[in-house]
């Protein structure tokens, strides 16, 4: 058996799920090959960590925690109008926001057009003060 074949069978070897002769061949290979044995030990250690989970017990306040959560959920459910009101409030807020945006837009537009008019009125300074008069006044 080559290294790759053995490595592919190690997890099944650990669980003793290989047919008898294969189980023996892998054992023989592990006895001779240090590299595969090191990996086998690592794999064994990793999988043993999972066994530790089976010894875990729930904490002493486990049931009390469940009851608290149930009560908390019940109190949330006792105000169903809150849940119904939420989307209505959101829609209302959205509508107010849009209306406000339109108002701001219109207002800005009105201000802009006034400003534009003021800027756009041409100031004919020649008619106000002809160049000859200007030159005469220049000292």
């Amino acid at each position, binding site marked *: 058996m080559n290294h790759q074949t053995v490595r592919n069978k190690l997890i099944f070897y650990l669980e003793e799920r290989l047919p008898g002769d294969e189980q023996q061949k892998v054992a023989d290979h592990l006895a001779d090959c240090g590299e595969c044995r*090191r990996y086998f030990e690592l794999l064994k250690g990793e999988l043993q960590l999972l066994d530790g989970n089976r010894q875990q017990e*729930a904490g002493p306040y486990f049931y009390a925690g469940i009851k608290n959560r149930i009560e908390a959920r019940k109190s949330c459910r006792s105000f169903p109008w809150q849940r119904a009101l939420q989307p209505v409030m959101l829609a209302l807020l959205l509508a107010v926001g849009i209306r406000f945006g339109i108002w701001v837009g219109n207002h800005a537009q009105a201000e802009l057009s006034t400003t534009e008019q003021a800027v756009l009125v041409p100031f004919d300074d020649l008619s106000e003060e002809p160049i000859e008069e200007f030159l005469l006044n220049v000292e």
Partner: protein
Amino acid sequence: MTDQELVRQINSGDDKAFRLLVDRHQKLVLHTCLGFVQDRDDAEDLAQEVFVDVYHSLPKFRGDSKLSTWIYRMAVNRSLNFVRDYKRRRFFQAIGIGSSDDFNRDVADESWNSRPDHEVENKQRRTNLYHAINSLPERQRVAFTLSKLDDLSYQDIAGVMGLSLSSVESLIHRAKLGLQKKLYQCYKKGS
């Protein structure tokens, strides 16, 4: 007391019956959650949430399957949702969106300071192992977790997952091969 009687009594508002149900099944639910979630506190929170779901959904339990199978299914679904949310949170943290509290907590949890060496090593190995398990395709991960961590029979796993026995056997076989491969990659990186 049979499962059906227990369910009937809980539905009629008997708190003691619910307590009995929790006592009977808390270990299996906690172990299932621990199979998906590395952190013990998270697993216990999840297990409590599963029982809250069970409490609220019991009136809908028709008794088509065993009560334990039904509870297992809820535990698996809750755990998978938790893992998906966790991955999503990690993604947003990685790109810099979301609260930094969780991220800081994770960093603190994985700190190697103030821990004895063997604990640090165990933690690192556990992290590698869970990383390898969580990188398996979802159905393989569920089947493997239920068989390895909860010692469920293949028949029970088939019931929980709603699959045929041969599909479960195939999933677990592939999961073991995949896990072995991923752990070997970790081993090569480490050596």
